[in-house]
């Protein structure tokens, strides 16, 4: 039966995350915007312990055996991420223990890998100086030498690459074989041959460490490859292999969309409060076009946020119920990414000098929001994926 409300059980998770965001994150939000390149903030350590103690999402796919509808770990994740990012997206990304690498290990790792690395803090390294959105162009190499993989290459823009325990690194077994030869490897942070080149200075998310890493004859055990070593001897098999790697994104894109939801809600709330103090109240009492420009702007932002929020919940709901959601995951990431950017920037403009100043969080939210429309697949990559799905075109036809 169609129902787009959050069930009570999940509402509790949401409230806990919101509590954390307002009592832990918000009070230190400005402080850590000014401290770049520090260690993990002290205040986040108890948060990490608390989260480690919480029951992990089973990671189980599909509806229950009875075919009943589930609201599972994907949807819970959306609600928690949204609420925490209302507090501070940079701080949320700095909580030790839950990196993108963890999502990849949980999605495609073996039981042993999950046991060994599941509870550590795992980052993900895909982007290279010469390969960003085009993840098939990865040129970091992995060569088998006896019982070890030897990694060589350079990775950039690796979130938590400095503070993590291990990194899931994308590398190619043989560049001439294209996508199919790209595999991911778990590289413990202290492996010899892995060096931290630099930590980036950024416009937003400043407390979150974004690292450039170099791999020089970096050796890891053979069983640290995620998934299968096979490259596949037919084109179909190769396509499938890379598709499997990309599947991680179907689960992570809605989570990233949820970041934009939290940031936008924060900006909109502050903006609405400031407007109410000036007597501007968007209370749905007049038709949109009979409202003032400020009221109409508030309505439009709220509508866009609502659209993005429902789309994100839908994508997560599909994942929880074992429905293929690649199109919907990209749809919600595209909508939420651009909405987050539009809303936070408009909020700054609507609040004038006050919005632009550091007296409120609006300018920070606007700085933080931009990256959400870039990482985990840019706006344009999401549109490309959605277009291929709708039009039924391959990546060769629609480049």
């Amino acid at each position: 039966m169609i129902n787009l409300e959050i069930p009570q059980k999940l509402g509790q998770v949401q409230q806990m995350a919101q509590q954390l965001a307002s009592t832990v994150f918000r009070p230190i939000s400005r402080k850590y915007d000014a401290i770049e390149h520090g260690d993990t903030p002290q205040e986040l350590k108890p948060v990490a312990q608390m989260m480690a103690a919480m029951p992990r999402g089973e990671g189980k796919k599909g509806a229950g055996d009875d075919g009943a509808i589930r609201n599972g770990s994907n949807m819970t994740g959306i609600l928690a991420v949204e609420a925490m990012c209302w507090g501070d997206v940079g701080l949320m990304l700095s909580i030790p223990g839950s990196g993108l690498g963890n999502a990849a290990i949980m999605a495609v790792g073996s039981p042993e890998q999950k046991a060994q690395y599941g509870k550590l803090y795992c980052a993900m390294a895909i982007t290279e100086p010469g390969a960003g959105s085009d993840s098939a162009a990865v040129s970091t190499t992995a060569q088998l030498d006896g019982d070890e993989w030897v990694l060589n290459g350079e990775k950039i823009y690796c979130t938590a690459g400095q503070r993590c325990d291990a990194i899931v690194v994308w590398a190619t077994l043989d560049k001439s074989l294209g996508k199919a030869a790209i595999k991911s490897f778990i590289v413990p942070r202290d492996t010899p041959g892995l060096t931290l080149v630099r930590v980036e200075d950024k416009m937003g998310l400043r407390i979150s460490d974004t690292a450039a890493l170099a791999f020089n004859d970096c050796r890891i055990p053979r069983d640290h490859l995620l998934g299968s070593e096979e490259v596949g001897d037919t084109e179909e098999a190769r396509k499938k292999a890379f598709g499997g790697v990309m599947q991680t994104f179907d689960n992570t894109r809605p989570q990233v969309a949820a970041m934009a939801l939290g940031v936008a809600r924060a900006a909109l709330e502050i903006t609405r409060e400031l407007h109410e103090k000036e007597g501007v109240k968007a209370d749905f009492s007049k038709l949109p076009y009979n409202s003032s420009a400020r009221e109409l702007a508030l309505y439009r932002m709220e509508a866009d946020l609502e659209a993005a929020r429902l789309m994100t919940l839908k994508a997560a709901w599909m994942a929880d119920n074992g429905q293929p959601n690649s199109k919907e995951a990209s749809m919600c990431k595209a909508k939420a990414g651009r909405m987050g950017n539009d809303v936070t920037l408009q909020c700054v403009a609507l609040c004038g000098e006050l919005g632009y100043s550091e007296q409120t969080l609006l300018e920070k939210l606007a700085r933080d929001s931009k990256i959400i429309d870039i990482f985990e697949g840019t706006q344009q990559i999401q549109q490309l994926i959605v277009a291929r799905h709708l039009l039924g075109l391959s990546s060769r036809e629609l480049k």
Partner: protein
Amino acid sequence: MSTDALFDLSLTEEQRITREGSRRFARQVMAPRAREADEQAGADDEIVAGIAALGLPLMPIPEALGGVGLPRSPLSAALVIEDLAEGDMSHALAALQPMGAVHALMDFGNDDQQERWLPSLASDSFQAAAVALAEPGMAFEPSQLQCRAERHGDAYRLSGSKALVPMAASCHWFVVVAMDDDGPAAFVVPADVDGLSITPQAYMGLRGAGLCTLNLEQVKVPLGDRLAHFDLERLMALSRIGLSALAVGTCQAVLDYSIPYVKERKAFGEPIAWRQSVAFMVANMGIEIEGMRLMMLRAASRAEQGLPFTREAYLAHLQCMEKAMEIGTNGIQLFGGAGFVRDYPLEMWYRNLRSIAVLHGSLMV
């Protein structure tokens, strides 16, 4: 507000079956004949009869009054509107208008009023009635109605004008919303009453919907025909859901029609769909329709569950009126000159979609 119910987007078995039937009718009967009705500026009788045969106005009417006696279901109504709008927005609006009028009587009328007015609509053939809220002019605002109702002894006298009333020339009666001393009120006005004149109007779109203006000059309405439980906010909100559903269905038609065309049409030696500038327009249509549909469904399902839904309906309608027009415009753009000529339906959809920002009070779910 949260309940124990899970977040769920699955249709019930009944909704799925109804949907199959209404979609088939939309595709096979409505879509091929929409253009002719648009050109002739009048509804196609067979389409109207076909929609009437679905029996939607009958559903909530009590059995004693000739109906089926099912509980009111804003969600099911919204789904049907969306499906039929995929076939043609004009006919969906025209032929479903009696359903909106029944809903108004069910929600706002007392037992006597329902007994008096509903049997005339309890039929498998098309029996028309309409809610008349919008008024002529530029800056209509429902909270500041110009149409007045003045009490004279044992009756009211209604004076003013109402606009954008679908199929008004065929209606048995109207629910006319007017200001009385206590604020906005609603009155059932029979079509043949003295002092009421009905004038067809030509509009940019919805030319098959029989849109008319009503002029009321001292129209006498007995006290008993003032709807007992009228709630303007509820009328507006339920209508916003209906209008949003019209927008979603029509936009889906634009998208579904555009996809094969851009894959077939070639330029520079390959299908234009292979170019990102074209493909991204298609992607954005799909993305926005998804958001519009979910907002419409959320408002409808809250109404169905008895939760407050004014805010959700307002936001859904705002999103739909603006994004729908973007989609209508881009539909033409994708077809280029072919979108502008009347051989293709794109220009008709563009003209029809603009109405979502202008209609008010129609198609209460």
